[in-house]
């Protein structure tokens, strides 16, 4: 028996809807988790290099704790574990309002925040200390020096590894299907089950992830070019070889 291709399942009726919803949920969970990861990572990365001892210790604990447990386990933990600590009413409310989305978003953001943190720390530590001293000697506080000088320089230097981590985050959002988040992978599986068109559904899923990630890479490449610090090596030109 030969397999009958039917690509129309990707855009027609109910299944087409599912695919669109999947893309939109993947983008939503990724963007929110990325923001959370960015804030947590920048804060904890900065605190590890400059914070008062209890804060830098806390940041180190955060990084080691969250990056050393599989993402899948965190997803389960945030979805099945954490809600049990909440009062009954809060639990009911959460499960009536898309608890799986928020649990998945938190797991993804907190896990990648720990990884972002190490990227930020390595960037900050590559900046000469005299740069900080120059800022402090004009009367800026350490926090201000970090906010206006150190972190802006570090982030510009770190765009390639940040891109790397961001792509990982986007792809890892697919793990959220295990707790029932109706994201892209979840929806391709559903289309496959419903129509038995596994090849079409999975091809669509593959290509959509590819396009989303390539789009993000291209965006970051433009950002890298526009934010480049004048005077640093961007690319050795042929004349310089």
């Amino acid at each position, binding site marked *: 028996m030969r397999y009958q291709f039917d690509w129309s399942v990707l855009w027609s009726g109910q299944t087409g809807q599912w695919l669109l919803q999947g893309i939109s949920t993947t983008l939503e969970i990724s963007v929110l988790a990325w923001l959370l990861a960015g804030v947590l990572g920048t804060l904890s990365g900065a605190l590890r290099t400059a914070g008062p001892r209890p804060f830098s210790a806390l940041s180190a604990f955060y990084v080691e704790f969250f990056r050393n447990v599989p993402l899948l386990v965190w997803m389960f933990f945030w979805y099945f574990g954490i809600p049990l600590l909440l009062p009954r009413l809060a639990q009911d409310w959460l499960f009536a309002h898309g608890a799986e989305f928020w649990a998945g978003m938190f797991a993804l953001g907190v896990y990648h925040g720990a990884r972002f943190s190490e990227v930020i720390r390595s960037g900050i530590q590559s900046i*000469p200390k*005299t*740069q900080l*001293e*120059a*800022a*402090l*000697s*004009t*009367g*800026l*506080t350490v926090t*201000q020096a970090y906010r*206006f*000088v150190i972190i*802006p*320089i570090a982030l*510009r230097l770190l765009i390639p590894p940040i891109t790397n981590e961001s792509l990982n985050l986007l792809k890892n959002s697919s793990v959220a299907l295990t707790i029932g988040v109706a994201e892209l992978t979840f929806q391709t599986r559903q289309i496959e089950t419903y129509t038995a068109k596994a090849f079409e559904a999975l091809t669509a899923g593959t290509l959509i992830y590819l396009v989303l990630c390539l789009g993000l890479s291209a965006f970051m490449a433009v950002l890298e070019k526009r*934010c480049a*610090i*004048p*005077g*640093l090596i961007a690319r050795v030109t042929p004349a310089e070889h």
Partner: protein
Amino acid sequence: MQNAIDHIVCGAAICKFYTDETLFTVIEFQHVNKWYGSLHVLRDIQLKIERGEVVVVCGPSGSGKSTLIRCINRLEPIQSGEILVDGRQLSDPRLDLRALRTEIGFVFQQFNLYPHMTALHNITLAPMKVKGLARAEAEKFALALLERVGMQDKAGAYPANLSGGQQQRVAIARALAMQPKIMLFDEPTSALDPEMINEVLEVMTNLAKEGMTMAVVTHEMGFARQVAHRVIFMDEGQLIEQESPETFFKAPKSPRTKLFLSKILSH
């Protein structure tokens, strides 16, 4: 703010401002000791710098001269003794370090401009964030400072697109933007090509003429001779000699000073 600009732009006003004050010690080292691990980098330093005075600190490398001036705005902590700036003890736990640092301009050997900001924004950052000036006001003031160091045409340039001498002049303008009472210079011309040294020294000479209190670590003996009120010689963490430039260069007392001078003044 307008007053401040007048002060900065018009050197004569500053000169008057400073000479009207009676002589007053602004920086005082009292038996200061500092160690890096087991290395004793400052040994029982005793030193007073008066308001409006220009002090040049020289000595062989590793003698502690950079450390000496880095202690004044507490970029380096000391282990014993006391440093007073404008009567305030640096060891006082209630010291407002931030306020103190705004009164002390610091110029580094490696310029340390913020590479992601234009010359203008390098200068406006601290006045806006520390003093809370509005952008327009801060920029107006910064442009006046750039003009003062001969860099008004380069306001929009990034540090990487400026020569070393130009970068250092912007760094001096950045330090002046907080209207400091004291300026510290840590080998400001040591990273510069010979032809750029003079443009920086000229800016520093003008500052000195306007009555700024200055402590300058430098190997530029011409500057010491012409501009300094006092020359200090350090070796192995000790303050060996402090004299007027005439005496220092013509009749140094210590044999170590003589040896040092014979090495750097090769003619």
